[in-house]
C-alpha cells in the first residue's frame, strides 16, 4: 500500500472470527478446569464478528482484494468458519491446536498475532468483543503484539490509499482517528447491517479453501499459551444467588403511585 495516485492496489483483509456458546442456551463452566464447557451449549459465530465480516466485504467491494477468515478454536469452530465463508469471504485459516485450550484473552491475542504473521494483510478486522468472555481486550492486545496502529471501537471506516481513518465510538460521541496501513480495526455493532448468506454463497462456501494451522506452523511458543501457562486463573465459580422474588402488581390506575411508594420505601425518593 501507500502508492500515490490512481486506484490503490487490491487489499488483503483478514477477519478474526470466534465461535462462542449461544447466548440463548444455558452457558456453563467446566468444573474440571474452570474453562468454558463447550459441550453444554450450541456454538455460534460471535455476533459482532458478523459486523466485522460485513465491513471487510464492503472494503473489498470498494477497493478490491481478498477477505481471509482467521479463527482460533477447536474442531467445532469449522461451523463459524463456514458461516463466515458463506457471507462472502474468500478463504480461511483455522488455527487449531490442543495446546491452545484454556488460553486467556492475552494468550489468544498472542496466538492470533503469530498466525497473522503467516499471511500478508493490509487490515485486520475483528468484533470489539465476544459475547462469552466480553473482555474487549483482544483487538488492543493484538495491536500491541504486532506493533501496528490500534483503530478499535470503529463505527465508520474509510481507507484512502495507504491511509485509514475511523470514527472511534466514545461515551459522548466519537474520535476521528487516523493511521497508516497495515492496521488493526475493531468494529462496534452499528457500523453496518450484516448480509444474509445467499443459497448460492452457502453452496460455494463448501468449496472455499480452509487452511489448517497448528501452533508449530504459526511459530507459537508453547510456553506462552494454554491453560497451564495462562496469565490469569479462575479460582472457583458458583451459580449467582437467585434474585428474591419481587412484587408484581397489575395496573388498576394507580401503578405509578405504587411504584413511587416502593421507591420511597427504598429511600430512592
Amino acid at each position: 500500500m501507500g502508492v500515490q495516485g490512481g486506484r490503490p492496489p487490491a487489499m488483503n483483509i483478514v477477519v478474526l472470527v470466534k465461535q462462542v456458546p449461544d447466548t440463548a442456551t444455558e452457558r456453563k463452566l467446566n468444573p474440571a478446569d474452570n474453562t468454558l464447557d463447550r459441550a453444554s451449549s450450541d456454538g455460534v459465530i460471535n455476533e459482532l464478528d458478523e459486523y466485522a465480516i460485513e465491513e471487510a466485504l464492503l472494503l473489498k467491494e470498494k477497493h478490491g482484494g481478498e477477505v481471509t477468515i482467521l479463527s482460533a478454536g477447536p474442531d467445532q469452530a469449522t461451523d463459524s468458519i463456514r458461516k463466515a465463508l458463506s457471507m462472502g469471504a474468500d478463504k480461511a485459516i483455522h488455527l487449531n491446536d490442543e495446546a491452545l485450550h484454556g488460553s486467556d484473552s492475552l494468550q489468544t491475542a498472542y496466538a492470533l498475532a503469530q498466525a497473522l504473521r503467516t499471511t500478508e494483510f493490509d487490515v485486520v478486522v475483528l468484533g470489539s468483543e465476544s459475547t462469552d468472555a466480553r473482555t474487549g481486550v483482544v483487538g488492543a492486545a493484538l495491536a500491541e503484539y504486532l506493533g501496528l496502529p490500534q483503530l478499535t471501537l470503529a463505527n465508520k471506516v474509510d481507507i484512502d490509499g495507504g491511509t485509514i481513518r475511523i470514527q472511534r465510538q466514545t461515551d459522548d460521541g466519537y474520535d476521528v482517528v487516523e493511521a497508516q496501513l497495515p492496521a488493526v480495526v475493531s468494529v462496534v455493532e452499528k457500523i453496518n447491517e450484516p448480509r444474509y448468506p445467499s443459497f448460492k454463497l452457502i453452496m460455494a462456501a463448501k468449496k472455499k479453501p480452509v487452511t489448517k494451522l497448528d501452533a508449530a506452523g504459526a511459530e507459537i511458543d508453547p510456553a506462552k499459551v494454554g491453560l497451564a501457562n495462562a496469565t490469569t486463573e479462575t479460582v472457583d465459580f458458583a451459580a449467582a444467588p437467585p434474585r428474591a422474588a419481587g412484587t408484581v402488581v397489575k395496573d388498576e390506575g394507580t401503578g405509578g403511585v405504587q411504584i413511587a411508594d416502593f421507591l420511597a420505601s427504598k429511600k430512592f425518593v
Partner: protein
Amino acid sequence: MAEVLVLVDQVDGEVKKVTTELLTLARRIGEPAAVWIGEGADDAKAKLAEFGAEKVYVAPAELNDYVVAPKAELLAKLAGEKSAAAILVSATAENKEVAGRTAVKLGSGVLTDVVDVTADLVAEHSIFGGTTITHAKVRAGVPVIAVRPNSIPAEPAQGAAVEEQVSVELSDAAKAAKVVERVKQEKGARPELTEAAIVVSGGRGVGSDDFSVVENLADSLGAAVGASRAAVDSGWYPNQFQVGQTGKTVSPQLYIALGISGAIQHRAGMQTSKTIVAVNKDPEAPIHEISDFSVIGDLHQVAPQLTEEINKRK
C-alpha cells in the same frame, strides 16, 4: 506498603465517581497512587486526596493525542519504577484496552469487568448475564484489573496526594493511531450511563422515537437514560445508550425498565443492578421475574403518573 496505581477518569477536569470507587478499593491492597493525564491536576487533587490518594502522578496531555497505547506505556513504566502491587482502571471500553496493552507490556495478566477485589488480589466477576459468579487472579507480574463502575461504594479517607510530574518517551508504535478530531454529541445534563446511580431504560413498548416518557422519568430521578436493543435497532434512541450484551453493562442502585421484555441479551447488561423495577403490559415478560417491583400495565399510563408522583414528593 506497595503502591496501587489508579488511572483517573475525568470529564473536563472533574474526577469521575468510578475513580473514587477505585481509590477505595486500592486502599485494601496498598497505598493508592492516582495517575492523572493532562491539565487540571491541581484542581482535582483535593478530590483524589479525599478518597485516599497518597500520590498523584501527573503525565503530559500529549498522551491523549493517540489511541490507548501511550497510556499503556505510561502505566507499564510507572508500574516498574514504583514497584506497584497492582494497576486498577475502570472497566470502560477504552480502559479495558489500556489494561490489555499494559498487561502485555508487563508480561502479566488482565482481569476485566471485575465487580470486587480482595486485599490479596482475588477478583470477583459476574458472568453469563449475571448467572454465574467467578473468582480469578493474575498468576504472574503486576495484576492489571478493570473494575466495573458502581461495583463498590466509595468511602472517603484522607490521603496526602503528593504531586509528582512524570513523563514517558513514547515509542513510534504508540503514536501510530492519531486522534485528529474529537466530536461530542448530545451530552445534556444527565449522568453518564455506566456511572449513574439510577438508570431508566426504554424498550419496544415506548413505541416511537419520542422517548420523552422515559426521559421525563429519568430527569425526575436525576437518572441516566438507557435503551434496549429493540429501541436502538428501531432508530428510536442512539446506539451509545444501548444496555445489554452488545451494548453497555450497567450496575446502578436502581434500574427501571419501561416496556422492555427482559430477554437474556438485555439482562446481561443490567442484571447486577441492586434494585430492579419494571413496567410491561405483557404479564409473561421475563423482566417481571427478575424485578423487585413490577407493574403489569401500559408504560404510557404508569410512567407519567410515576414521574408526577416523584416530582410531587420532592
